[in-house]
C-alpha cells in the first residue's frame, strides 16, 4: 500500500514450482486459513435460521426439525413498519459518518504530520486516540451531559438548542460528531503511517523548487496516501450498513428514535426483543448481502478510476 509497492504488474503464474518456492510462506498462512474457516465460514451455517421459523421453543431442536418458511422472514422484515425508515437512517448516518470521518482523519493526520516538535506530536497523537478505547457507554454518558437538553452546550449559549431532542436528521450529525471525536485519532494512525512511507526526497526537491507548505501537502502528501484513502473508503463503504448498535441505542431517546433506529438495532429489537430469532437473522443476512454488494460496486468504481482494486 505504501510507496514501496513495485510499479510493475507482472503476474506470477501459479505453478508447482512457485508453490514449492513459497512453501514456507504457504505453511505460515495455513493457521490463519484454518482460523478463517472455523470462525468465519462455519458459523455461516447459522444463516439457515433466516429461512426458518425459530422461536425459543424450537431453538434447541435439530436444524431439520424446525419449520422452513422460505423467504417468509425476509418478507416480514421488509413489510415491517420500521423497515424503510431504518434503511434510510442506516445509510444516512453511515454516509455522513464516512464522509466527515474520513475528511477529519486525513486532516488530523496532515496536521500531525506537519508538526515539527516531535514530543508534542507524539503526545497529541496518544491523547487523540485514547477515546477509541473507551466504551460507548461512557462516551455516551459524557456526550449526553454535553449535548442533552439542559446540558453543557445549552448552558453555554443559555438557550435550549434541542440538539438531541429534535426529531430530524440533526441527530445524525450529532451522532457523527461524537463518533468522529471518539475515532479520529485512531483513524488517523493508518494515514500517518502511509505518510511516513513517502520518500523524503520528494519534499526536499519540492522545497528547492520553491513549493510552500500547502503546495507540498497538496502535491506530495495527499497523492502519496491516495491508495490508502481509496482502500479504506472501499472498506468502509462495504461496511456501510454495519452501523454500531450500541452507539445508536445509547445516544438515542424516544423523541428521536425514529431517526436513530439502524439495521443492527432493528435486528436486535425484532430478533431478541420479540424472541423471533429467525427474523433477526434474516435482517442480519440482508445486511451482509447488501454490504458485499456495496463493497463490490465500490471496488469496481475504484478500478474504473484507474486505482488499485482491493480485490
Amino acid at each position, binding site marked *: 500500500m505504501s510507496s514501496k509497492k513495485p510499479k510493475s504488474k507482472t503476474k506470477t503464474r501459479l505453478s508447482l514450482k512457485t508453490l514449492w518456492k513459497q512453501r514456507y510462506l504457504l505453511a505460515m498462512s495455513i493457521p490463519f486459513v484454518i482460523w478463517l474457516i472455523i470462525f468465519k465460514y462455519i458459523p455461516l451455517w447459522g444463516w439457515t435460521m433466516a429461512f426458518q421459523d425459530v422461536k425459543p421453543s424450537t431453538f434447541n431442536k435439530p436444524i431439520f426439525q424446525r419449520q422452513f418458511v422460505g423467504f417468509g422472514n425476509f418478507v416480514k422484515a421488509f413489510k415491517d413498519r420500521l423497515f424503510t425508515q431504518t434503511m434510510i437512517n442506516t445509510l444516512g448516518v453511515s454516509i455522513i459518518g464516512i464522509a466527515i470521518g474520513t475528511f477529519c482523519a486525513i486532516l488530523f493526520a496532515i496536521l500531525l504530520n506537519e508538526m515539527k516538535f516531535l514530543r508534542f506530536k507524539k503526545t497529541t497523537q496518544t491523547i487523540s486516540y485514547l477515546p477509541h478505547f473507551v466504551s460507548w457507554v461512557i462516551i455516551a454518558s459524557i456526550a449526553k451531559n454535553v449535548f442533552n437538553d439542559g446540558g453543557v452546550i445549552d448552558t453555554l449559549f443559555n438557550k435550549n438548542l434541542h440538539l438531541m431532542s429534535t426529531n430530524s436528521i440533526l441527530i445524525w450529525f450529532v451522532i457523527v460528531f461524537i463518533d468522529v471525536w471518539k475515532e479520529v485519532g485512531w483513524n488517523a494512525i493508518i494515514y500517518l503511517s502511509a505518510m511516513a512511507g513517502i520518500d523524503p526526497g520528494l519534499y526536499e526537491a519540492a522545497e528547492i523548487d520553491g513549493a510552500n507548505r500547502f503546495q507540498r501537502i497538496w502535491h506530495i502528501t495527499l497523492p502519496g496516501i491516495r491508495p490508502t484513502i481509496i482502500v479504506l473508503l472501499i472498506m468502509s463503504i462495504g461496511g456501510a450498513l454495519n452501523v454500531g448498535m450500541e452507539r445508536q441505542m445509547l445516544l438515542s431517546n424516544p423523541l428521536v428514535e425514529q431517526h436513530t433506529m439502524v439495521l443492527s438495532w432493528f435486528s436486535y429489537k425484532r430478533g431478541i426483543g420479540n424472541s423471533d430469532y429467525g427474523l433477526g437473522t434474516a435482517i442480519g443476512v440482508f445486511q*451482509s448481502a447488501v454490504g*458485499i454488494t456495496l463493497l463490490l460496486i465500490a471496488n469496481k468504481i475504484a478500478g474504473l478510476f484507474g486505482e488499485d482494486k482491493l480485490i
Partner: protein
Amino acid sequence: MKKRILSCILAGFMVLGTLSGCGSNGSGSTPETGSTSTPASNSQQVEADAGTSDDNSPITFTYYNADGKNSNWDNPVAKAITEATGVTLEVSYPVSSTGEPKEDVALMIASDEFPDMIYAKGSATDLYEAGAYIDMTDLIEQYGPNIKKMYGDELEKLKWGEGDDGIYQLSYAGVGEKDLTTDGTAQIQWAVIKENNYEYPTTLEEFEKTIKDYLAKHPKTPDGQDMIGITMSASDWHWMITLGNPAGFIADAAPDNGQWLIDDKYNVTYKHVSPEEKEYFKWLNRMYNEGILDPNFATQTDDDYIAKVSSGRVVAITDADWHYNPCNRALIQDGKMECTYCGLPVVLRKDQKCASLLYQGLKVGWGIGITKSCKDPVRAIKFLDWLCSDEGQMLYNWGVKDVHYFIDDNGQPYRTDEEVKKSQSDPDYSKNTGMGNYTGFPIYGRGSYSAEGIPYTPSTKESVKKDYNEEEVAACKAWGVDMLTDIFPQADEFKLLPYSALWAYQKPQELANMENILNEIAWPSLVKIVTGSEADFESNWKAMVDELYANGLEDANKAMTAFLAGKIIDK
C-alpha cells in the same frame, strides 16, 4: 506484507458484520439432547433422588435474579440461609444498561445452559417455550409442605394455563398482602401539602393549581436551584412507570393492568386510546408548554431523574414508590424531610374513584422457577420450601434474631428504632443485611400474620404507623385519620376481581409481540404528543391513534380479551 494484512482484515470484515444475531449455532450440529426434561422424567428423577438428598450438605446453586442489583451472598441473612439449608447461591443479575433480562435469557436459551434457579420477570415465556423450566407440581406435592401452606388456595393460580397445568414458577409477590401504604396515583412534596394547610388535591385540576401556586411562591430551592413542577423518566422502560401507568391510574381511574383496560364485561382494550387518556395527555401537553413539566423529561436518563428527584427540586411526580423510594431515602439523609413525597388519590374527574387500594389478588406470572440445568431439583425445592417456612420468612423479612430484631415478652418480634431508621435511610440496607435482597424469593405480603399471630414482615398496621415520619404523623393528625391510606377509597368499596393483574401474566409470544408493537408506537408518539405545541395536539393524537389502529390494535384487543377469558376464575 501490508497488502496481505489488509486482505486478511477485509476477508474478516466481510463476514464479521454478517453474523450479528446468529453467533452461536451449536444447535445445528449437536445431536438431539436427551436432557430435555419432561414432567415425567422429572418425577422419576425425584424418586431416584429422594433417599439421597435429605441432608444439609453444602451445595451451590446459581440464581439469576432479573430484579437484582447486586450479587452479594456475604451478609447475615444469606449466611443464616446457608447454615439452615446448606445452600449457597451464586446470584447473577441483568448487566445491560436498561436492566432488561431479555438479552440474558436469549443467551441462556441459545447456549442451552440455564442457572439452577431463575426469576425472569417478563421473559418467563421465552424460557417456558424453550423448555427450560421443570414442572414443580410433583416436587411441591412431595417436598413442599410449606410452599403449599404459603400459597394455600392460590396455588391453583400458579398453574401455567394455556392447557398446561404444570407449575413452573412461584410468585415473587407477597402472599396475602394488605395495602398498608400506597403511593397513590401522583405524589407531591409534603412541604406543599403543609403550606396548603393540609388540603390535598384529588383531581387533576386541583393538582395543577397546587403545583402552580407553590411554584409561584417558591421559584427556587433554598440552595438556589430552579424548582421543577413535574418530572418524568421516559428515556427507557421507565416510561411505563412514570408516563404510561399514571395515565391509566389518573385518567381511567383503573387498577394496574399494564397497558390494558378491562371493563365490567372483561373486555380488554389498549389503554392509550381512551378518551380520558386523551384528556390527560392534553393536560400534560399544556403543562409542558407552560413550563410546569420538566422540559428535559423526555431526554434525561433514569439516573438523571433519580438525581433530580433526590435533590428536592421537584414539586410533584407521577411514579411508583419502589422507583422513587431511593430518592426519599436520600432526601431524609440530607435532612430534607419535607421534600419527601406524599401519595395522593388524584383522578381526572370528581366522579371517578381512585383504584390504588383495589386488591388485585396474588400476582402470578413472575416468580422463581427451577430449570432443567439444575443438578439437584430436590435440594432446590427443599431450599424454596425452607424459604416459605415461618423460619425462612422471619429470616428473610425480619433478619437475624437478636441482631436485626428481638422478641418481646409477648413473643412478638420488634426492631430497635435505630434498626428501623437504618432500614429507611441506608440505600444499601438490603444489600448489606440480605433482607429482601433477592427478589423472586417467595414471600408473605405486608400485613400478613402466621398462625401464631406473628407478623411475617416488619410492616404491620402498627409498625407502619410507628414508622411514619414527622411529616406523615402531622398529616394524619391534620386529616383526622388513623392511617395515610384512609384518604383513599378503601379496598372494600371495590368489587373483588376474578383475575390477577393482567400485566404479570405470562402471555404467549404472539400476544406479547402484538403488545410490543403497540407499545413501540405509543412510547415515542406519547412523548411527541406531550412535547408538541398545543396547536398540534389534535393532529398528533390522531396520528398516534391511526397508527395504532393500522398496526393491529383491534386484533390485539380481541386476542387479549380471549386470553383474559381463559384466566377468569369462577367464584
